[in-house]
């Protein structure tokens, strides 16, 4: 007869596999029968389970909000220019340059106000935003799939420039998925589909000095639709703020 300790050793690695649902049915039945009769292995199973719980309790902060922007910058360095530059060159941000501290302070104020106002607008009037295609954010619950990453979408520019619609392109509009419902605070989709959103309210921006416009558009945090949706505020900020180069 096999001594009890030998039996326990025989099942040792199976305890973990049981927690991971990796045991074949027959083997699982054998292990369960053993567990019914072995308090020592039951205690060990509890300890292993506790270890998993402890591990899962470790706090891990979510991704930084600028992670997509940093990814975009690295892709741009790879030669994948941001789509906005390709699709709307008129509004493309100018090359960054050295700015005096006062200008940076002005830009920071403008960005803060605009972002706050944008947040409020998004919370209250999501339908007034320029049309964008919301992408499905949750992975499929495929057969056998145990992986279920949470949606991590944040409002940003596209990461990669759209490929031009070449003849024979396999990409068809029908292949696009319908907008998926999103949580109210999930913000807008990362991707603004090409062609870019219409710009019905850009006229007032054109009255701004080129320098002001360039500054606003060169701020990474601002997106076209944010600026468009906040023209009044933007104008007030610009009217009150020091002009770059003035004085």
């Amino acid at each position: 007869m096999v001594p009890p300790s030998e039996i326990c050793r025989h099942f040792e690695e199976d305890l973990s596999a049981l927690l991971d649902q990796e045991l074949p049915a027959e083997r699982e039945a054998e292990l369960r029968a053993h567990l019914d009769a072995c308090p020592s292995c039951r205690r060990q199973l509890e300890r292993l389970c506790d270890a998993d719980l402890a591990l899962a309790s470790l706090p891990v902060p979510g991704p930084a909000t600028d992670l997509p922007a940093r990814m975009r910058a690295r892709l741009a360095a790879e030669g994948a220019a941001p789509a906005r530059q390709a699709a709307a060159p008129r509004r493309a941000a100018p090359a960054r340059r050295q700015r005096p501290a006062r200008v940076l302070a002005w830009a920071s104020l403008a960005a803060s106000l605009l972002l706050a106002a944008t947040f409020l607008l998004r919370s209250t009037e999501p339908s007034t935003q320029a049309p964008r295609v919301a992408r499905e954010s949750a992975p499929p619950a495929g057969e056998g799939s145990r992986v279920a990453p949470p949606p991590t979408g944040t409002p940003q520019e596209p990461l990669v420039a759209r490929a031009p619609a070449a003849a024979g392109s396999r990409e068809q509009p029908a292949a696009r998925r319908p907008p998926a419902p999103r949580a109210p605070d999930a913000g807008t989709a990362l991707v603004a589909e090409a062609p870019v959103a219409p710009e019905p309210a850009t006229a007032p921006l054109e009255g701004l000095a080129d320098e002001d416009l360039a500054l606003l558009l060169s701020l990474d945090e601002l997106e076209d639709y944010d600026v468009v949706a906040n023209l009044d505020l933007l104008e007030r900020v610009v009217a009150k703020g020091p002009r770059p180069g003035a004085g």
Partner: protein
Amino acid sequence: LKQEAEATVGVPDEDVRLMLAFRAGDAAAFETLFDRWSGPLLRYLARMLRDLATAEELVQEAFLRVYRARDRYEPEARFSTWLYRIATNLALNELRRPRQRALWRSAAYDEGEAPLAADAPALDDVVDARRRGEAVWRALAELPEKQRAALCLSALEGLSYAEVAVALEVTEKAVKSLVHRARSTLAARLAGEGES
């Protein structure tokens, strides 16, 4: 693309379909993949490295490698398995650096604590929880790197042993052993902490 994805991977995998679409020139598919997987990948790498800034760098590096490999991508497994394999290799390389080892040995990890709510637990409970958390980090740090990766991928990220085997480039049998040794070591160390 969907049929090709199913035919090659054997199960419906939306991510494989997206990757094939990206290979065919659909840039938005890449964005969707980044949107879906940057968070889980960061969580995994942060636990592997205990350094959020480096974990974020490696998330970008992993997706950069996906971007570069798009033309020669062949769906031989789930996209996520491939992605975790890239990330694991990056993490293991990073862990070989002296700086990263030093970070693991120090206890200076910003846990990104949330502000206390009105019904926040008593201070003693907070201190106890923090001490417990630190003990878990320490126990995790002392695991051999492959054991740590196997346990994180299996127990936390939900990969099957077969998927972990692909990610770690070992056999499934080895994964079963790695996961169990990691888990039982962790359990023993945490039990020891609890008794001390």
